[in-house]
C-alpha cells in the first residue's frame, strides 16, 4: 500500500521549519546559547560559520506589501532586496547577532548595507569580496585569500579558533546535506515524481533555516519513506523553474495545483533550489582551498556567469544537462522584477530552450504575485502544449 507524500512527517517538518523559521532560530539560541548569523547570498561559505558553532540562516522575504524600505532603497531595485530589508526593519530578524554578504549583485549589496546599518540587533557584519569572474582561472586563489580573512574575522568575533577538525565536520555535514538533497532530486527524474516543486522548495529552503545536522536526519528518513510513496497526482507537463529566490508558496501552488491542466516541477534552477546545494566540496589538505573551489566552481548565479576569452555560460551548460536528464517539457522563467543579471541571460536562454524544443513562459515576480493574471498565462501556456483532440 503506497503512502501519500502529503502525509509524510518529513514533509510536515520541512513545512513547519519553513513557516516557523524565526521561532526555530530563537529556540536554537536558547538551547545552544550560540550566535545566529543571517546571510544574504548563497555564495556565503556557511561551513566556516558552522565550524565556529554559529548557526547561519538565509535572509528571505515574506511576500507582504511594505513601504518602510522606500526611504532607503529606490523603487527600481528588486522586490527581494526591499522585502528582505523590510523583514529586518520590522524586527522579524531580531534574534540575529550578525549579518553577512558574500559579494553579490548590486541590489543585494545595498539591501545588505542598509540591513547592517539599520537593524538594531546587528552587532557584527561582514562584507566579503567574492569574485564575479568565477569563470577566470584566478578566481579560486583570490577567493581562498578572502576566506582566510573571513575565517579570522569570524574567529575574532566568536572568540574561538576554528580547527581543521571542526572545518572537516562542517564540510561533512554540509556535503551530506547536499548529497541527500541531490538524491531526492534524482527521484524527480521518474515518470511520476514522488514530490512536487512546492515540496522541493520547502525542503531546500528549510535546509537554509535550520541546523543541517537535524535537516540531514529528516532527509535520511525522508528518502527511506519516499521509496514507497505512490504519486497520487497526475504529473502532467514536466516543468523546470528558472529563477532566483522563488520561495513564494502561492506562486508554486498556483502552477502545480491551481490550473485546469496538470503540471509538475521536476527541477528548480534557482538559489532556493538546486543552485544552492548542487555541487559538493571535494576535500583536500587545504580546507579553505577546498571550500573556495566549491563556491567558485558551483553552478553560477547569472550575476557571475560571463565570457572570459571564449563565449560561453557555465549555467547554460548545466541547464542543457538538466533538460535531458529530467526530460523537461516546459520552462517557467520566474524573473525577479528588475533583476538585471537574469534579464541579461533571458534572450539567449530562450534560444537555448527553443533549440531543445522546450516551451517557455516568462513571469515577472514582485513582492506579491498577481495570481489572477499568472493563472491565465500559465493555463494558456499549458493549453498550447495539449488539447490536440479539440481541433478537428
Amino acid at each position: 500500500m503506497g503512502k501519500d507524500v502529503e502525509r509524510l512527517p518529513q514533509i510536515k517538518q520541512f513545512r513547519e521549519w519553513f513557516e516557523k523559521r524565526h521561532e526555530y532560530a530563537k529556540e536554537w539560541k536558547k538551547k545552544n546559547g550560540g550566535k545566529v548569523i543571517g546571510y544574504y547570498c548563497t555564495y556565503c561559505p556557511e561551513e566556516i560559520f558552522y565550524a565556529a558553532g554559529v548557526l547561519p540562516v538565509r535572509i528571505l522575504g515574506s511576500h507582504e506589501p511594505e513601504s518602510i524600505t522606500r526611504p532607503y532603497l529606490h523603487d527600481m531595485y528588486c522586490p527581494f532586496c526591499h522585502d528582505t530589508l523590510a523583514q529586518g526593519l520590522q524586527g522579524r530578524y531580531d534574534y540575529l547577532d550578525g549579518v553577512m554578504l558574500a559579494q553579490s549583485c548590486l541590489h543585494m549589496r545595498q539591501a545588505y548595507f542598509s540591513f547592517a546599518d539599520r537593524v538594531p540587533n546587528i552587532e557584527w557584519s561582514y562584507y566579503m569580496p567574492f569574485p564575479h569572474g568565477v569563470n577566470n582561472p584566478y578566481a579560486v586563489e583570490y577567493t581562498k585569500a578572502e576566506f582566510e580573512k573571513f575565517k579570522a574575522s569570524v574567529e575574532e568575533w566568536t572568540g574561538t579558533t576554528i580547527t581543521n577538525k571542526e572545518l572537516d565536520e562542517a564540510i561533512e555535514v554540509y556535503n551530506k546535506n547536499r548529497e541527500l538533497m541531490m538524491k531526492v532530486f534524482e527521484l524527480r527524474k521518474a515518470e511520476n515524481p514522488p514530490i512536487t516543486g512546492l515540496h522541493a522548495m520547502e525542503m531546500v529552503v528549510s535546509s537554509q533555516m535550520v541546523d543541517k545536522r537535524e535537516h540531514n536526519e529528516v532527509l535520511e528518513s525522508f528518502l527511506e519513506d519516499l521509496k514507497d510513496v505512490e504519486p497520487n497526482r497526475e504529473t502532467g507537463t514536466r516543468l523546470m523553474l528558472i529563477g532566483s529566490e522563488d520561495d513564494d508558496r502561492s506562486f508554486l501552488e498556483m502552477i502545480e495545483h491551481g490550473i485546469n491542466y496538470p503540471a509538475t516541477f521536476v527541477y528548480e534552477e534557482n538559489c532556493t533550489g538546486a543552485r544552492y546545494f548542487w555541487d559538493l566540496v571535494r576535500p583536500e589538505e587545504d580546507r579553505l582551498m577546498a571550500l573556495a573551489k566549491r563556491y567558485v566552481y558551483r553552478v553560477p548565479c547569472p550575476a557571475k556567469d560571463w565570457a572570459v576569452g571564449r563565449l560561453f555560460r557555465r549555467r547554460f551548460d548545466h541547464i542543457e544537462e538538466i533538460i535531458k536528464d529530467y526530460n523537461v517539457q516546459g520552462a517557467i522563467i520566474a524573473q525577479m522584477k528588475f533583476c538585471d543579471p537574469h534579464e541579461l541571460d533571458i534572450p539567449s536562454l530562450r534560444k537555448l530552450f527553443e533549440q531543445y524544443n522546450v516551451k517557455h513562459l516568462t513571469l515577472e515576480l514582485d513582492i506579491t504575485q498577481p495570481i489572477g493574471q499568472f493563472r491565465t498565462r500559465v493555463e494558456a501556456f499549458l493549453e498550447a502544449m495539449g488539447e490536440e483532440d479539440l481541433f478537428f
Partner: protein
Amino acid sequence: MEVKVRPLDCWDDFKKYRKKYYENYLEAKDKGGIRWAGSAWAFDPVPHGLGEDVYSLTGEPYGATCAFFQDFSRECLENIERQGVARDLCGYMRNYWGSIVLDKYLLADGTLVEPFPKPDFNFTIHICCSHAKWYHFAAELEGGIPTYAVDISVGPGYMLDDKKIEYVVRQLKDAIPWMEKITGREYNDELLIKAVYAEADAMSTWAKICKLNQAKPAPLEEKSMFSLYVLNLINRGDPEVAKLYYKLYDEVESRVKRGIGALTYEQFRFLTDNPPPWAFLKVYRYLEKEYAAVSLGAIYTFGLGGGWIGMDEKGEKWIWEPAPTPEEAGVEITNRDEALRWTAEYNLRYRASWQHEYSHWIRKQETYQMVKDWKADAMIMHLNRGCELWNMSTLEVRDYLVKNHVPTATYEGNMADPRDFDEARTFNVIDSFMQSLGIEKIS
C-alpha cells in the same frame, strides 16, 4: 554680484578630439588599423600596446551620445526591446545594442553611418552587474566577436592588498597574448608603458581641474564639463589627451585668478550625483537661467574621469585630493609587469567611481565631503533608472545629507531612456525645492 564670463579657449580642441575619436573608429579598417570595443572603465592602456593604429569605442559615452540624440535613441530602445530585451536594463547598454541591431553607427555630431562597425574584439571590465554581460550579449548580436572581461570587483581602494591587485594583474597579463592571437600582432611593451603614464597624467590632471571649481565664482559649470571630462572615458591612454588637460588646467587656473566665472550671476551653488538625463540637459539650463544656480560638478563628472586619494586608510573620511602620478609617487615604470601593476593599482585605488559601490558609507562620505569642499548650497540628485550602479545608495545618501543639514532634492529620470523622464514633474521638483529654500527666480 556681476561676474565676468568668457567662453573657454580650448573648448574647440576638446570638441574636435571627440569628433575625430568616433571617426577614427569608423575608418580604422581603411588604414589597416585595429578596432576594439569595451566599457569606458576598461583598462584602456592595455590595447594601446598593440600599436599606434588601435582605435576603441567605449560603450557608455557612445550610449550617452545616442541618448543625446533622442529620436535615434528611441529607435534603438524600441528595436532592442522587440528582441525581448528587458526595459529596465542599463540605458547605455540598450542604446548600444539597439545601435548594433539597427546596424547604424552614430557620430559625435549626430550623423548616422551604416553599417555599425564591428570591433575585432571586445575588451572590458566587470564591476557592476552588467559590464561583462553587456559585451557578452553584444558579441552574440555581432555573431561571435571574441570577448574578454577583467573582473575588478575586489573592494574599495583603502582595503586593497597584494592578493587583490595580483588577481586583476594576472587577468590583464593573460589578456595580452589573447589580443596578440586575435590580431596577429606582436605586442609592444613600450607603447603600453607610454599609455600607462599618459592615463595617470590625464586622470590626475582632470582631478586638479575639478578642484579649481571650488573657487567662487565657479570657473566651470557641469554642463560644459560633460564635454571636457569625456576624453578620459574614451582614450586616456593617448598622451594627446593628457596634453589637452594640461592646457585646460592652465586656462581654468587663469580664469580663477581673474575671477572669470561660468555664469554671469552666481546666486546658488549645487552639486549633482548621477549621470544626467542626456536628452534633457535643459534641466541645468533651467536652473542657470531661472535661478542663477551653477552646477559645480558631481561625484560622477569628477569621480569617473579623475584620480583621487579617496577614503583615508581608516575608511573614515573621504579626501578630495588628486592622486599621485608615477613621477609624483617617485615610481619608474620600465616593463610590462610594472606597467600592468601600476595601471591596475592606480585605477583600483584612485578611481573614485569604483570606490562608493562597496558601501553606502563611502558614498555618503564622498558626497558630503564634496558638498563641504566645493562650498555647495545644496544637492540635486537624479534618481537614475538607467543605471543600477550609479543609482545605488542614492536614497541612503539623501537621508544622510538631510540629517546633516544639506538641502537635498531628488528627481526621477533615466540617463539614456527619454521615455523615463517627466519634464513637468522635474521642473516642479526644482521650483518646489528653490521656493522652499527661499531662492527667488531672477527673471
